[in-house]
């Protein structure tokens, strides 16, 4: 763990305690079993709002606390540990980053306070096909009067069911443009997507949705860089959540190695398993450094954000992939049962891996950044 400021330590400890008490995995299980359409527990989200978490990266002048991405990452790591479902990541990190980085003063004043107080849930709608490919899109925004007509579909939109507004990427005449689109505009329809991690994904369809030029986020036709930057904020945050999920899987496995007995001894006394644990521990520590470096580069607005972020998503991704498999393997039969929590971690691991670019995507991007 990075050397933290007093406020950061306080928020991390608060997150640890609150999530353990108010949002243990059992809550997630109940939500899944209830088949709720929302795919998160509303009281959990209200609790987060009360603690001010949706305002962590939002400056004080817009109703947040302006504590930055590393601080947000500390909370996301705890959320990842206990698989807490909520719109926090999609809206207060990705959506808020979009408005913060791309928004004009009016958009900031209008939207950021509402993200911070939870009255708005703003999420990014970017992908259209099975794999994350942010610049390949069919969705079009055609000039129409003083505004645009949006036509097309988006898929795997996070918290797409709960969202009040969307940041939508669409082709315009000379490039890509981002738009902030209220979710209740005429012509938008949403369909839930049932993923194995029981979260609130939706596919969106835009049919002749009329929006105004004031809905443009950033500059017309020049949305690619902005989109990349928003995605990088999201990817860094995802890697914090992933690290938390992997760290919890590691702790569960280590605990099992120390208590499960076979052949008359605890299985952690077998060298094959001891070395596997040592190896996973090393990977966890190395990937934690990458994750923290990525969040810091966002806070510093450093020039190496893409490099650090792709490093982080790929390295944490490698760790979580292996860790989630070993979680099941080392637990043996019990790990295969739905009654035990291991399966939740495995399922979540693969869903989050695919989100905003998998390991292959980020390794390729890293190589291109280094010119090969």
């Amino acid at each position, binding site marked *: 763990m990075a*050397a933290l400021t007093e406020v950061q330590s306080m928020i991390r400890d608060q997150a640890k305690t609150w999530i353990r008490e108010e949002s243990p995995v059992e809550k997630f299980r109940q939500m899944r079993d209830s088949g709720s359409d929302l795919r998160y527990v509303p009281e959990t989200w209200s609790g987060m709002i009360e603690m001010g978490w949706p305002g962590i990266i939002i400056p004080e002048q817009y109703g947040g606390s302006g504590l930055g991405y590393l601080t947000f990452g500390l909370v996301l790591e705890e959320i990842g540990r206990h698989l807490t479902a909520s719109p926090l990541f999609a809206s207060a990190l990705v959506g808020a980053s979009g408005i913060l980085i791309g928004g004009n003063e009016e958009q900031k004043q209008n939207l950021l306070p509402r993200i911070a107080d939870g009255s708005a849930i703003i999420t990014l709608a970017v992908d259209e096909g099975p794999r994350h490919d942010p610049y390949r899109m069919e969705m079009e925004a055609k000039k129409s009067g003083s505004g645009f007509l949006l036509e097309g579909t988006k898929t795997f939109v996070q918290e797409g069911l709960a969202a009040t507004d969307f940041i939508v990427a669409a082709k315009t005449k000379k490039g890509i443009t981002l738009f902030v689109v209220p979710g209740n505009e005429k012509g938008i329809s949403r369909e839930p997507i049932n993923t194995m991690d029981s979260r609130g994904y939706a596919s969106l369809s835009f049919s002749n949705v009329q929006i105004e030029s004031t809905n443009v986020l950033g500059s017309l036709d020049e949305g690619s860089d902005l989109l990349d930057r928003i995605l990088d904020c999201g990817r860094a945050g995802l890697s914090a959540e992933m690290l938390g999920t992997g760290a919890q899987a590691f702790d569960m496995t280590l605990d099992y190695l120390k208590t499960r007995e076979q052949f008359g001894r605890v299985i952690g006394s077998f060298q094959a398993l001891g070395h596997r644990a040592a190896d996973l*521990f*090393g990977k966890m520590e190395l990937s*934690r450094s990458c994750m923290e470096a990525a969040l810091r580069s966002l806070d510093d607005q450093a020039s190496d954000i893409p490099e650090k972020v792709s*490093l982080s998503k790929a390295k944490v991704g490698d760790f979580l992939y292996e860790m989630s498999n070993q979680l099941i393997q080392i637990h043996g039969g019990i790990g295969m049962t739905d009654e035990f929590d291991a399966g939740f971690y495995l399922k979540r691991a693969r869903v989050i891996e695919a989100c905003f670019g998998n390991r292959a995507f980020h390794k390729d991007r890293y190589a291109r950044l280094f010119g090969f």
Partner: protein
Amino acid sequence: MTNNLDVFREEVEVWVAEQFPKSLVGSTMGLEGETSEEAKADFELWRQRLADKGWGAPTWPKEYGGAELSDAEAKIISQEMGKQGAFNPIPLMAGMGVTMVGPTVLEYGTEDQKARHLPGIASGKIRWCLGLSEPNAGSDLASLSTRAEDDGDTYVINGQKIWTSGADISQWCGALVRTDSSVGKRDGISFVMLPMDQKGVSTKPIQLISGISPFCETFFDDARTDKKELLGPLNEGWSVVKRLLQHERQSQTQARSPSASSNKPSLQELAKTYVGVDSAGRLDDPDLRVRLIEHLMDVQSHSLTVGRITEEARGKVEVSAAASILKNSATRVAQGNSELTLELMGNQGVGWEGENFSADELSNVRDWLWGKAISIYGGSYEVQNNIISKNILGLPETTQKG
């Protein structure tokens, strides 16, 4: 605090500019292949100036030849030297003295031992080797059989050590010896220091798969040392050596990545030269490309982790359990670098000598072969994993009985 360091940095800069002989800029630290008498004299002058300043081992107490500086200040010295093409040759000249023997003597030594041994190390005048491994005691170090017998005021030592780096040119040796064979194997071991220049000690250099090496076999045939040279309590040498090996591990955690530190072309540039790129600028061997990416990510995550652990220790690089993780990851980085270099060079990467090959191609072969030792010495890859699983993760002992 920051201000004080800034002031210190200026002082160092001025001192180095005034005292470092300009003739030595760009020469190698060990003065290898350097023949001119003038250079030798300048080298000796520089060593002595550093020693007088206490900067050979700057963090040690002044009374033992150090300068009582903080780790941060010591780092500034090496940074400022680097900027001016200067270097500190003393750690190299003292063999295992500055990095391993000295810190252990500081912790376990008597006042007399500190006063007699540390100044020679801190000034680079006395070179130390370490007699730890034996032909039948490698990773299982505690099964060593070299024995020391009580003979009044002295110990009489018999046995054979191996992998004693620099034994043929060292003046002193720190050796693990068995002083009680009636108890469990870790319980009857002591750590003694003995002079190398005596009838009962002989050494024989070892040639490795990579060519010549600093390693020797060292034979003790009724070698003697005074009883006052016992470091730590009798029969408790195992705890002394565990500490010593922690210092060793600590010194091995910094992965040197040629691509990051020197003016050699980076690995990706080399790859583009030897392998070529496709029309999109991607390396023409997709499999190699992925492994190269993963290697570069390993390099970066290793160095970020070294930075993070240093920062978490509040600037104080502690001899911590985490060093075991870093040793293994430094090993992966170093071995990965030369494996990939060898591979991307293709047939040009396998030369042994001669004009068909460039100097870089030939040196990589030797580096690659030498690199196989990194996962063996200083506690093998597997031993590090034992340490992690037992000491950090709290899993039960898997290997040692008794």
